[in-house]
């Protein structure tokens, strides 16, 4: 409107037809968005109040799907796996990323374009590729078992992805691999923006490397930290492809995640309401994660 009122004749024209035409510009996007995102969001909430097998008539059960979750061991297991995955997707890569940023900022090494492209590469690979890579490393006659045999640790070799104990951590490591480069890239380029005066001042104050890290580097990286946390936490919350392509949640349910559970509830066990309810829970958790991160990051200011 600001632009249009620059000339009175155009302003008049706009009043007549401008808004209608302007709305036409919006229409295709709004239709696609409404059909694929907005309507299904509310439908999900609505579905979650029903017991429905996807075919016959649905039955209103109110909050029972959610109440049922409280006593459902599978749901608890899936979300406890999410906590483990957060360690691998988020905590580990962020810690390593911060560490490498701290080390590199001290040595003043500029990190090369090639290094940048390589550490970011896992982010643009599709999950099928990542699954193949990690299945191969951890398969019965894969490279890890080969390496163990070579150093005489034959007794430790095992089918890693068929193990009740190791499957989840192994999948977690694959996740760390995909998010680590991103965290390193964020933090290392973030330290480049921290003014060197701050480091000089810290040195004058006699701060050691560790003090310097906590009083200069870490606060300076706050925006990058927020991005990395949001990204990796939500990735951990949503893990599906990697599990589906390697173990389908098994052996047993030892690597099941909320998204895998959603899939099997809604599309194989014909419990559509419960599947939708898991979706709603995930949306709420994602929202909480984002809000908490924004709040915490603001508070420190």
């Amino acid at each position: 409107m600001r632009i249009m009122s620059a000339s009175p004749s155009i302003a008049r024209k706009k009043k007549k037809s401008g808004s209608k035409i302007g709305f036409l510009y919006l229409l295709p996007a709004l239709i696609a968005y409404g059909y694929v995102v907005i309507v299904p969001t509310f439908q999900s909430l609505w579905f979650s109040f029903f017991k429905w097998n996807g075919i016959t008539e649905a039955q209103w059960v109110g909050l029972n799907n959610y109440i049922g979750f409280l006593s459902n061991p599978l749901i608890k297991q899936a979300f406890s796996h999410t906590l483990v995955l957060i360690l691998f997707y988020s905590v580990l890569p962020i810690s390593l990323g911060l560490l490498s940023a701290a080390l590199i900022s001290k040595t003043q090494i500029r990190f090369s374009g090639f290094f940048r492209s390589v550490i970011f590469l896992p982010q643009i690979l599709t999950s099928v590729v990542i699954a193949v890579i990690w299945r191969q490393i951890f398969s019965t006659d894969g490279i890890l078992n080969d390496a163990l045999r070579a150093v005489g640790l034959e007794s430790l070799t095992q089918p890693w992805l068929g193990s009740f104990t190791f499957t989840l951590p192994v999948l977690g490591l694959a996740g760390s691999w995909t998010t680590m480069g991103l965290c390193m890239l964020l933090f290392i380029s973030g330290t480049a923006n921290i003014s060197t005066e701050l480091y000089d001042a810290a040195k004058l104050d006699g701060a050691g490397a560790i003090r310097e890290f906590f009083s200069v580097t870490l606060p300076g990286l706050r925006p990058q930290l927020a991005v990395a946390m949001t990204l990796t936490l939500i990735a951990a919350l949503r893990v599906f492809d990697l599990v589906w392509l390697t173990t389908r949640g098994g052996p047993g349910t030892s690597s099941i995640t909320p998204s895998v559970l959603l899939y099997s509830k809604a599309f194989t066990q014909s419990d559509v309401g419960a599947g939708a309810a898991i979706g709603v829970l995930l949306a709420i958790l994602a929202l909480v994660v984002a809000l908490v991160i924004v709040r915490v990051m603001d508070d420190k200011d």
Partner: protein
Amino acid sequence: MVIVPLLLLLGAAFSPVQSGRIDLGDLNYSNFVNVWKEAEFGRHLLVSLRLCTLVVAITLVITTLAAYAIAILNVPGSKWIFTIILAGLMIPLESILVPLYFTLRAMPFGGGATTLLIAHVGLNVSFGVFWMRAAFLAIPKSLIESASIDGASPFKTFRMIVLPLTKPALITLGLLTFLWTWNDYFLAVILITDPDQLPVTLAIGEFATKYSNKYNLMSAAAVLVALPVVTLYIFFQRKFIQGVLTGALKG
């Protein structure tokens, strides 16, 4: 640490042994030929290419138009329309998937690649509008004002001034849309039931399950799937990194 698994994958793809063990003295590309034949890779490649082209084209058209209406034309209510569109960035795919599956399955083209096309386009609206709006707002106001004083219609201004000035942003959006569509597995695994219309990720995923002990073939398949995106990445590395970091919040 990042590069070793990638090298292992490449090595295994050229390995003649099933386990994918790498023997540098004995490398051959027969795995690629076998995968191409056995997985009918060519056909699925075409499905994916067609899907990606259409998704990119439609996404670019509808999101630039919408962003233009919001950022430049200032359509009444554009503030709250933009807020609603932004909200989509916060909604994870999981929370719309179940109803979306039932809606799209009921369509005459249910289970085919068209369902994926619609789903991808709809899911791209939030980020596309967000991205292009920011680019449009960076255009100096005086340029647009002078165009309208010269009597250019809003659409002419859009085509002759706004789009050419925001070409870099358009290219990034196109690349990201291609990346997301090509790489998608989750949506495809749920929405596609027609075996003739499996996009390449899904086809290779099934192939990998079927030949789960032939690691050399699996690796060759994985390399083939990754190739188009990696090629684009080599040429547009900066745009990818910048875009992925901004688009990271996309559900």
